[in-house]
């Protein structure tokens, strides 16, 4: 633990020195980072959008660990969040293009996102479908509304020759936040799960409706799997993979 902390501080120092040494060629250009619109956008991307990626990483773990869903189905159960985010993101771009109101939309999206994360926190081992679908839809609307605004704001207040630099800075901060939250928190959640499993009396109470699951997997069970996977014997698949593998590594 101490090694990690010391390593973190040392890497931050090295990063700052390197950025200072690079000057105008750095990822975080000091001249641009000093602008209010840029550093506020970086902070917003690092916190609010980082929480989106954290939720999108933890929810499948929740579905698998608590709802006993398969990895594929945990992705399917995540679709309300993805679809709502996508539609909301498109709507957000259209609204900003039409009205120019970016900051109020950012605040609205952050408010809805905060409410949605609070509601997701209330998810337990015995929820109805309406809860986890509704909470994801609400969160998707909030995150989608505010998702592009940091980049829009940073680009809108930059000179044409600085647009690529400010975009890289916002995306860099976003990527750092994603990895920081996703890796550290998800590993934390997994370690907690290992040492603190559900009580035996509650393990059978799955939060996901069986009929919902059966409806979602119907195409896979009736159409895709029997026609494409069963007739293909495993050795032939492995042989074809091996041929491809050898072809890839054949010296030229």
């Amino acid at each position, binding site marked *: 633990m101490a090694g990690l902390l010391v390593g973190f501080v040392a890497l931050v120092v090295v990063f700052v020195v390197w950025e200072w040494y690079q000057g105008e060629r750095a990822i975080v250009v000091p001249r641009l980072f000093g602008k*209010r619109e840029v550093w506020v956008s970086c902070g917003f991307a690092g916190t609010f959008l980082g929480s989106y990626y954290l939720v999108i990483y933890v929810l499948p*773990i929740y579905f698998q660990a*608590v709802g006993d869903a398969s990895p594929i189905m945990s992705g399917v159960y995540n679709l309300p969040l993805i679809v709502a985010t996508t539609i909301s993101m498109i709507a957000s771009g259209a609204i900003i293009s039409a009205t120019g109101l*970016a900051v109020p939309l*950012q605040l609205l999206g*952050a408010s809805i996102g905060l409410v949605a994360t609070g509601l997701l926190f209330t998810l337990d081992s015995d929820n109805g479908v309406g809860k986890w679908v509704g909470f994801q839809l609400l969160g998707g609307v909030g995150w989608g509304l505010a998702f592009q605004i940091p980049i829009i704001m940073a*680009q809108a207040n930059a000179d044409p020759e600085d647009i690529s630099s400010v975009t890289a800075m916002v995306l860099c901060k976003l990527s750092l936040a994603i990895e920081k939250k996703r890796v550290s928190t998800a590993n934390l*959640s997994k370690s*907690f*799960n290992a040492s603190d499993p559900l009580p035996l009396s509650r393990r059978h109470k799955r939060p996901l409706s069986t009929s919902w699951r059966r409806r979602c997997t119907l195409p896979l069970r009736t159409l895709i799997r029997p026609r494409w996977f069963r007739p293909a014997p495993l050795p032939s698949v492995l042989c074809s993979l091996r041929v491809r593998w050898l072809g890839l590594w054949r010296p030229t």
Partner: protein
Amino acid sequence: MTGIKVAFAIAIAGAGIGLLIGVFNLNGGKWKLSAAEKPKDVHVAV
């Protein structure tokens, strides 16, 4: 379940700080983009 709750709690903290930054931006930042500042193809490409 505790770990997942911890993860969601950190997500709440992140979204809360994001909301505070939004309020800060609303307080002193520029509310409305001018016609020249509205998103164009660069934003779409990103």
